[in-house]
């Protein structure tokens, strides 16, 4: 084999290129474990950074959308103070609610007993004469009052099912429990602490109409606002 022409032609390439290749310091080989530890540390930093970023984003989302988290102290049970008459009225309201929710009307919202006014209230998203007349056969002899509510029970029920489908994940994010409040015509979600921004963010995103969820925590609003 003759010497390839390029080998001889290369002899006069620029001096600085030769110097650089001749004098360049040899790279020190890092031990394998050091590389692995460094990679693991970098990964941890990336994960911590990413989680920090996500947390900050969700906190910002909750703040900018003014999503309130109410203190649990405001939700003391009224049932502890009911008289036998009130208990009877509560049962009536409950029976009407069960009957109407079973019909799965798109416009039915809620039915509850108003302790202060001593009235059984039926909430409809569309308080039309036709809808009211449709309700009456389910109320029997009980007199009811109608009011306009924001969310149908069907929607609240779907929202509840969505939450229930993610209950393990939500419990990891700090959700203690959830239920449909027919009185408030909302799904109530309970937390131990008000700073569970990831859960608040996720659950808020599930509510496509908006305003159908009420967040309640054991910590006070003051504590939350100081976070």
């Amino acid at each position: 084999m003759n010497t390839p022409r390029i080998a001889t032609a290369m002899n006069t390439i620029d001096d600085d290129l030769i110097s650089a290749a001749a004098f360049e310091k040899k790279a020190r080989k890092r031990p394998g474990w050091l590389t692995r530890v460094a990679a693991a540390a970098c990964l941890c930093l990336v994960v911590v950074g990413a989680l920090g970023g996500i947390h900050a984003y969700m906190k910002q989302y909750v703040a900018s959308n003014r999503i309130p988290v109410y203190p649990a102290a405001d939700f003391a049970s009224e049932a502890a103070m009911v008289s036998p008459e009130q208990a009877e009225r509560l049962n009536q309201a409950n029976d009407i609610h069960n009957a109407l929710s079973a019909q799965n009307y798109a416009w039915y919202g809620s039915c509850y007993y108003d302790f202060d006014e001593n009235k059984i209230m039926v909430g409809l998203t569309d308080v039309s004469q036709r809808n009211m007349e449709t309700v009456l056969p389910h109320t029997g002899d009980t007199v009811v009052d109608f009011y306009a509510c924001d969310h149908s029970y069907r929607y609240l029920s779907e929202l509840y099912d969505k939450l229930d489908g993610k209950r393990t994940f939500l419990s990891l994010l700090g959700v203690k429990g959830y239920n449909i409040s027919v009185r408030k015509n909302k799904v109530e979600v309970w937390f131990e602490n008000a700073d569970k921004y990831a859960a608040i963010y996720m659950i808020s995103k599930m509510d496509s109409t908006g305003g159908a969820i009420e967040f309640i925590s054991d910590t006070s609003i003051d504590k939350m606002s100081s976070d």
Partner: protein
Amino acid sequence: MDDVQIIELFFLRDERAIKETAEKYGKLCYRIAKNLLLNSEDVEECVNDTYLTVWNKIPPTHPNNLMAFICKITRVLSLKRLEQLRAAKRSALEIVSLSELEDILPDSRISPAVEDGEISKAISAFLRGEQEDVRNVFLRRYWFFDSIRDIAARYSFTESKVKAMLFHSRNRLRKYLKKEGIEV
């Protein structure tokens, strides 16, 4: 001693210039020659011829980069020596790095109108466009004729990575030369 002082000694025709050159660049010259010739007698001879050639060239030549100047002489002498050994059938050695280069520009029958200087300029320009580590790996292999293993150890790469880098560099160089009108 720095290069300026060594060159000064050559200009003064002071024989210490050879001693200082050997001390500073002897190992580097030896390595280049050894990579091509292997036989230590041939290597010694080539390195000594290098010192003699430098002595004869300086003055009047005043190299800007003494190291590159000396290495180039060693390289030329080593390649010539290799040709002689092959012609005399004293060396059946296959220099792998040379055979790798053969694919790019085999011999003088290719592009005879193009001067070596032009090809050299094109290669310099090509190498300047390469990433630093790719460029140095290429030069260590095809200028200094280091083995793949030595290059891998030098830059803390795996041998397969070095081979892959060289393979892609050769392909890019071939395309580049073709684009520059130096046809294969």
